[in-house]
């Protein structure tokens, strides 16, 4: 897993050195070529996790950007129109994330989505308390976050 990633970085550095143009687009292109070469070379190996994980990470980044933009439009619409549409509330959210790194990433993602704000984390690291702006029903919100953001994040990390 980590060996494949370092190999991929080395291959993209070699590509940048050979082409001689130090731009991010060129580095990304070299990374894609290195990923393809590694995929071909490792077809007979048993450990294929790296090659499933990189497309999942890219998909997760696009999913997260889509969620952020959607929520930003909702909040912006509420800010500029005279009537308040929101129903705020503080919700208790039971996490499936266990290690500190998983909790850190999950809380950062939830905090960066507009309309949700982490108020506090319980001391036994089992639940987080989220201030939500558009809360029609606490159970629905918890279920949506569990099946959407948290499941996708943990699928990448584990």
């Amino acid at each position, binding site marked *: 897993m980590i060996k494949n990633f370092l190999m991929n970085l080395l291959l993209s550095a070699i590509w940048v050195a050979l082409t001689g143009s*130090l*731009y*991010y687009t060129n580095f990304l292109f070299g990374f894609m070529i290195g990923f393809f070469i590694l995929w071909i070379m490792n077809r007979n190996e048993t450990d294929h996790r790296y090659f499933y994980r990189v497309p999942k990470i890219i998909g997760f980044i696009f999913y997260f950007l889509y969620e*952020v933009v959607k*929520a*930003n439009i909702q*909040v*912006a619409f509420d*800010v*500029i129109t005279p009537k*308040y549409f*929101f*129903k*705020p*509330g*503080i*919700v*208790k959210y*039971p996490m499936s994330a266990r290690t500190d790194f998983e909790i850190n990433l999950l*809380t*950062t993602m939830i*905090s*960066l*989505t*507009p*309309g*949700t*704000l*982490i*108020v*506090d*984390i*319980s*001391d*036994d690291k*089992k*639940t987080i*308390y989220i*201030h939500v*702006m558009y*809360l029609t029903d*606490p159970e629905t919100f918890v279920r949506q976050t569990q099946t959407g953001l948290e499941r996708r994040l943990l699928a990448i990390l584990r």
Partner: protein
Amino acid sequence: MIEIVLAILSTVGALSILFASIGILRMPDFYLRLSVTVKASTLGVGLLLICAAVMFPDVSVTTKAIAIIFFLIITAPIGAHMIGRAAYFTGTPLWKGTIIDELAGMYNDETHELESEESDTDDDREDDAPNIAKTDEETE
């Protein structure tokens, strides 16, 4: 082509910062103000920095822009979390339209430890009522 992308990105970034600043004025209580401001300004500053990175074809500008966006994304949610937690401790009331507050009564009064389950040992339950404002004037 590049100019159109730059125009769209910088317009969206500037608009989201504008909406964040209108939100500070218009939102009815402290938590909603915090919630609106931190996210929208992170998105706005990030988009403007991406514009700068696309506009100047220089590696040092791109690396600086990416580093600034990275540290902004790490630090802004932590800042918001600490400010919100401090506001909850000092008893800032929630807006009168707040429908639920599941955090009320979960803190230990002496140690400020937070439990994940409701403890049944308390004999006086009147301290645990949610701190929700009755009128608009309390949260001005």
